[in-house]
């Protein structure tokens, strides 16, 4: 049985410009100790999906669908204890007026009733922060971006969560720092057995760390597969487009997917990628594709999957 099971998750926002359908019946799962990458361009509903897991969305959002962690719906109390988060901006995601130690200790106190200096130092060591005894009393602005992100991670894993949700954890960091953070995340699985839901648009990061990939586009899950299979046999044209946009040594010219992610107002009876797709047909514009196994054997949501008979 999987650790996290998401079934038909739908998220709507009421905004001043009208309703927005951010996530449209998304289903996926994460197994114990598994690293799953949720990928797509910005605006695809990845972050909204992540925040919806523990009801962290703003008040103007309404969430439908089933979310189960070990078979039960996670309570707000599960935040930080069973499901923990790491966000993109380590600069702004830490409270500027509280010390690093205080911000980590807070989680321990909340979920385990007590925190100790020794335990906080242990956590800082776990995420590879040098001189933890000194860092514990410092404020976020005294740390570098990479160190701040390590503090975020220490905070997130303080209570040994079953699932760690990392929303673009390396995007705001320098490339050299990125590798260090990814190492820390990889070690966590080995040391404390945490599963990781990694949200990113960076396929390099995905190839580096993920076991399985879930591709989202305009609020829908459009393809999912093991990481090697997906990179070898992309089935949905959008996935193919994403892979083509990654710079590789043999092929210096990047192919960008023309157009941009549409803002969905309501669910539609069309493929949401139709307007940007080079394989589009009348069927794509009138009938909603279903997520079903494609030519390569893994599920994709496309009427004209790649890799089949052309």
């Amino acid at each position: 049985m999987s650790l996290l099971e998401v079934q038909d998750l739908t998220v709507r926002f009421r905004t001043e410009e009208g309703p927005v359908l951010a996530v449209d019946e998304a289903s996926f799962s994460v197994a114990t100790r598994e690293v799953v990458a949720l990928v797509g361009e910005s605006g695809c509903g990845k972050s909204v999906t992540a925040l919806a897991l523990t009801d962290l969305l703003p008040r103007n959002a309404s969430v439908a669908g089933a979310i189960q962690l070990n078979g039960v719906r996670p309570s707000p109390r599960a935040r930080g204890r069973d499901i923990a988060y790491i966000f993109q901006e380590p600069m702004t995601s830490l409270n500027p007026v509280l010390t690093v130690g205080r911000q980590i200790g807070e989680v321990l106190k909340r979920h385990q009733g007590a925190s100790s200096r020794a335990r906080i130092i242990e956590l800082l060591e776990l995420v590879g922060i040098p001189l933890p005894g000194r860092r514990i009393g410092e404020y976020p602005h005294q740390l570098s971006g990479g160190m701040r992100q390590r503090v975020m991670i220490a905070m997130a894993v303080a209570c040994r969560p079953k699932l760690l949700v990392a929303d673009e954890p390396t995007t705001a960091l320098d490339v050299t720092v990125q590798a260090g953070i990814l190492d820390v995340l990889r070690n966590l699985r080995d040391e404390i057995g945490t599963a990781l839901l990694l949200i990113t648009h960076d396929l390099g990061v995905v190839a580096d760390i993920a076991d399985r990939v879930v591709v989202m586009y305009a609020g829908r899950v459009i393809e999912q597969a093991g990481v090697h299979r997906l990179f070898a046999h992309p089935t949905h044209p959008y996935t193919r487009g994403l892979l083509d946009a990654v710079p590789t040594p043999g092929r210096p010219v990047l192919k960008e997917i023309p157009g941009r992610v549409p803002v969905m107002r309501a669910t539609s009876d069309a493929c949401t990628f139709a307007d940007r797709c080079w394989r589009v047909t009348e069927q794509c514009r009138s009938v909603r594709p279903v997520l079903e196994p494609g030519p390569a054997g893994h599920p994709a949501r496309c009427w004209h999957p790649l890799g089949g008979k052309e």
Partner: protein
Amino acid sequence: MSRYVLRRVVESAVTLILATIVVFAGIRALPGDPARTLAGEESDPATLAAIRATYGLDEPLPVQYLRYVQKAATGDLGRSPRTGLPVAESIGHALPVTLQLAVFAIAIAVLMGIGTGVVAAVRRRRPAEWGANAIALLGLSVPNFWFGQMAILALAIAYPLLPASGFVSVFEDPVESFRHLLMPATVLGTGLAAIIMRQTRSAMLDALTADYVRTARAKGLSSAQVVLGHALRNSLIVVITVVGLQLGALISGAVVTEQLFVLPGFGKLTIDAVFTRDYPMIQGVVLVTATAYIVINLVVDLLYSVIDPRIRVGGPAL
């Protein structure tokens, strides 16, 4: 850190010197001959000459100014011709009254202002926010002396619950002191409360959408911990600055409030001095107020740097 403190101290010192020049020049700008003013209406040339010699009025102005500053620095603010007492002594008697009133008023303002400000920000677009906003708008639009008159009318005359005038020190009889100061302190505090409320609300609205608040929620903290421990804690930095900036308004308000509730404080001393043409007293009162204002503002600024670690322990200026 120490450079910042040093700069603020030097700035405050310059301001203080300028303020003493203004006060000194102000008294020299009085219509007529200062010696004649000091001597009273009828005085013969011999008396005038004697006064000039005693007060050094026959010396050049810069010398007079330095002498004035030197005396003021040692606590000699001259003698009131009306009471015959040293000005410093009268001020010393009046100051505790005003301080007790001001501290009480600030406490009321901070409690009301921060409380309603937080409610207005958290209960966004609900009746609680509209109510809090309406109260703040009224607080800014109602002159505090009229609010005081109405309070006396309601709570001292129509329903005699509280005394309309008089002062009892908190150190003598805390209960009676509370009864006597409750109305004046509330009257003095409401205007400040309205300003604190507006600032708290807008700072809280910013803070509540900040990334670190999302982090705090994601950590599983309770709403109270998120709102009070994270969002409010950051907002307080702004609020403290506002209280510091409103200090002048508070002093002005104290003058009116003391006049209205017949409290023998600093403000009443000031107004009485104007109507009895007690110039040394006015000069002393103005100088002490300006000095207090500059010093307290310096303290608030330094306090601000203690509360905000970004200023306290260096790092990039934000």
